[in-house]
């Protein structure tokens, strides 16, 4: 699969008509070389540890914490949408949450280090509802000395 052209016309039509916000400002934060940066992942795949509560659509219940030392065999997904492939994730978590690849990049010196905590949202929601939560998480990420955030959709 390559792009929207490969989807069923109704699926394509749906995605083409999803309302997307625009922003007047274009913030741009400069930083260090990549090999000096501390990286956190924020996924919107609805990931969490098996013992965590699954995602709901309750207002305010927007994210789960993924510890930095998480084992890649210890995450499940409770995203409510069934309209994306999960068979890749069943076989290899890194195709959605590239934690092992990130660790390899830290070992090889391509990045500086990895966050103490990563975060997961569940993307079947209006992300504009997440604004205050995102701004709050920014403070927590900075306390962990994060200076690079990798956002990964699903």
């Amino acid at each position, binding site marked *: *699969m390559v792009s929207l052209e490969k989807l069923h016309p109704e699926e394509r039509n749906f995605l083409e008509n999803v309302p997307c916000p625009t922003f007047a400002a274009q913030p741009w934060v400069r930083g260090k070389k990549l090999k000096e940066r501390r990286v956190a992942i924020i996924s919107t795949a609805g990931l969490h540890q098996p013992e965590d509560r699954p995602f709901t659509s309750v207002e305010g219940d927007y994210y789960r914490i993924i510890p930095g030392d998480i084992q890649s065999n210890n995450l499940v997904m409770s995203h409510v949408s069934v309209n994306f492939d999960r068979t890749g994730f069943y076989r290899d978590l890194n195709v959605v949450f590239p934690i092992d690849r990130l660790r390899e990049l830290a070992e090889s010196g391509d990045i500086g280090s990895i966050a103490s905590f990563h975060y997961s949202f569940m993307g079947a929601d209006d992300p504009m509802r997440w604004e205050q939560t*995102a701004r709050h998480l920014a403070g927590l990420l900075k306390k962990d000395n994060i200076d690079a955030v990798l956002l990964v959709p*699903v």
Partner: protein
Amino acid sequence: MLAHFLEEEGLATTQISLIRLHTDVIKPPRALWVPFELGRPLGEPNNPAFQKRVLMSALGLLEAPRGPLLIDFPDDTPLLGGAPVMLACPYVPPAEDAETTQADRLCKTFKTEMTSMRPWYDQALKKRGRTIVGISKLTPEAIADFLCSFLEGSTPTQNPRQDVSLAYQLGYSVEDLKAYYYEAITAQPGADVLSSEDLDKWFWENTVAGKFLRELRGICLKNEDKLLQQTAARRIIPQKTLLTNTGGKG
């Protein structure tokens, strides 16, 4: 959108984009569009070298001097090699008994098929050291019992969990059931490299579970509980499967 909020708070972000059209409108500071199917932002499972290329391409945008940037990743996922594999569907003897209802027979056959998949599910667990089955917090046997209870009556007598609604538990159980089957089948020889399309075709057209879920969906769509109706409409069968309207195992 998250990127805008984080960047405004002073954190540099980069991201993978799966739908270029959306990213082009939202204009996050840095984005790498990838041509992969939805659900696979890093491209190919069990291909660390390819995943690392994608990851480094996204992270590399952090060193760009100015933006916003929307860069296209140049390659699709590697083509899968090898001869086509026939997926083995377990033999499930028909549950014939004049005293039972059609729903009883479907449930019995479904449970027999599920049991017959168990050696491959166990094999998958040993091989990968992980399973995605678990969000319902039920065992595979309890998942089958819970889902069958919808066919036996219009609404199950009780929700096996107190912390989530019946509709949510239905959605989680269906997700666990599908994960159980897909994890099991991809443990079979030659099946680990099959495309999602091949696997979906196998599940929805060749398993009793696929037929069972179609029945389940139809029943829950008629339930008076609106949340159950919504779950049935959106969370049991993928839209593309509904749109292609494939038949299913009889």
